[in-house]
């Protein structure tokens, strides 16, 4: 039994509602992603204020000057939400890159070699896999301490087993295919077989898992930083801003809570729509399995 990615689950929900093969959903998802990537890359140009400086009175409700209001330190919430995209996307991309960078080679080797090495590695990966992801990330983040790379590593550990499992199982089945046997018979080296025949076969799965993994990474990052395990303040971060905003919930400062949350939700929806579309494109048969 496999844990499902948020994107995967959302993709199911979305195709329940709109049916499959809806290209416009992929398009909308891609638009949302491009929007956030632009926000992240050009935040200094887009954001009206410096996100880490006091620019107004504390806890100003949204008005013409600060359309998302200000936080307890008088910082512009809009600017912080815009800059928050940087951290969210950066950590998500790094985490996914690390998870794939570790999980894919291990899966390739483990599936290819087989034997006791494979069994031990599979057992370890399964154990990590069975653990509630966020709690595992919390444990690692607690040991590693704050910092972009540390958080990314904590998140990556949670998702490495997914890459490992997907790739390992595929390799194990591709390995016995006729053309691989033929290549071997013609004297191809292990390394060549792996890179020339097996890797191209599992590449589509890697792409799909990568795209699905991003929304989860963003959710996990938001959770970690909400719990105070993210990057150090005052760097703008949606999860951290939410936990900071919660301290002023009694003053009815709803704007500090609403906007970072909406940012997380839309970016997660965007990634999900996009990856679902990509999934259908690359893997048209995946529907039949569900």
């Amino acid at each position, binding site marked *: 039994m496999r844990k499902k990615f*948020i994107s995967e689950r959302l993709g199911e929900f979305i195709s329940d509602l709109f049916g499959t093969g809806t290209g416009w959903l992929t398009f909308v998802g891609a638009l949302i992603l491009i929007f956030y990537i632009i926000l992240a890359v050009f935040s200094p140009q887009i954001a009206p204020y410096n996100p880490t400086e006091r620019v107004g009175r504390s806890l100003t409700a949204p008005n013409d000057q600060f359309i998302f209001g200000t936080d307890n330190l008088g910082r512009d919430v809009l600017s912080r939400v815009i800059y928050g995209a940087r951290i969210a996307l950066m950590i998500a991309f790094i985490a996914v890159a690390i998870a794939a960078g570790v999980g894919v080679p291990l899966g390739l080797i483990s599936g290819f070699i087989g034997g006791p090495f494979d069994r031990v590695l599979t057992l370890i990966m399964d154990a990590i896999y069975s653990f509630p992801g966020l709690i595992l990330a919390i444990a*690692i983040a607690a040991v590693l301490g704050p910092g972009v790379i540390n958080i990314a590593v904590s998140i990556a550990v949670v998702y490495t087993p997914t890459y490992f499992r997907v790739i390992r199982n595929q390799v194990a089945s591709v390995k016995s295919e006729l053309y691989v046997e033929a290549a071997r018979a013609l004297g191809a080296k292990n390394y060549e077989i792996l890179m020339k025949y097996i890797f191209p076969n599992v590449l589509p799965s890697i792409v799909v898992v990568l795209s699905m993994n991003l929304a989860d990474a963003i959710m996990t990052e938001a*959770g970690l930083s*909400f719990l105070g395990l993210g990057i150090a303040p005052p760097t703008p971060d949606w999860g951290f801003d*939410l936990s900071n905003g919660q301290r002023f919930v009694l003053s009815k400062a709803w704007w500090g809570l609403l906007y970072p*949350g909406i940012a997380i939700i839309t970016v997660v929806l965007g990634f999900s729509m996009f990856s679902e579309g990509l999934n259908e494109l690359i893997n048209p048969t995946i529907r039949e399995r569900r």
Partner: protein
Amino acid sequence: MSLKSYIITRIILALPMILVLLILIFFILRIIPGDPVLAILGGKAPVEVIEAKRHELGLDKPIIIQFFDYLGDVAKGDLGVSTLTNRPVWNEIKDRFPATLELTIFAFIIALVIGIFWGAEAAWRKDKPLDISARVYSIFIYAIPVFWLGLMLQLLFGIYLRWLPVGGRLSPRVSLDIKTGLLLLDSLITWNWEAFWDVLKHLLLPGITLGLVISSIFLRMVRNNTVLMLSKDFVKAAKARGLKPRVILYGHAVRNAFVPIFTIMGMQFALLLAGAVLTETTFSWPGIGSYLVLKIKYRDFPAIQGAIIFFALFVVIISIIIDIVNALVDPRVRY
């Protein structure tokens, strides 16, 4: 196979998993860069103090000895002593566990109720508004971070409407004899209605927050499986015997739809626990999740390790229980 031998087999099969989990936790918390002693004492402590602490914690022994000490301790139920409070970690966890249990059970029930009833009725009225709204609900609820949902409910019901408290388990002015630690149960068995009402009010927001988040999965599964079951021959046969629509829907279709759902409940429980950590923090709920977050703040490593081990065991135990329930619901598993 009898139910009893099924249960025993299931438990034996879980043992290697538990062992690997314990090894993993040990390695993550001990081997990964970062020195727990320095973390406890801070970088500026004198060398002798550091060495003494290292000895006290058994960290000067070879790693393999440390590992077996650790396994032995865990087997004895000894999770060490909190460096923050000097209390045994196991006792602290034991005190806080009922709060987490109460929250997760309550949330689970909410998720099941929403999932079963909405899912069943949606399946019965496929493609009608009730069904379509269920599908829209699932999308949004699943994209929402649980803590943000909690914050929004807090704002709405706690701050603006003032209907419900925004944190804690019991108002300070209410007295209650604590027996099981499950306050709802405690207030019931002592016939303390005032406390029952107060406890329920505190439980409602965090319970609903956590429950809603996993309800979407149940909702989808109940709905889709029920739609499938409603097309089965045995439903048609039940209809041909003149059974009432409710009996056909709940007694036959939903009941059978539940068989595949039970098998994935264990997975949902892991999700529920991760959500519980965030929910407990959002609502200052004094359970294991907020305990873990609190101890991380103070870098209380024995307590962190204890809490993580506890979560790991909890997940394994729940998955065993769910398999057993599954065997009870679906007799085919047993035979």
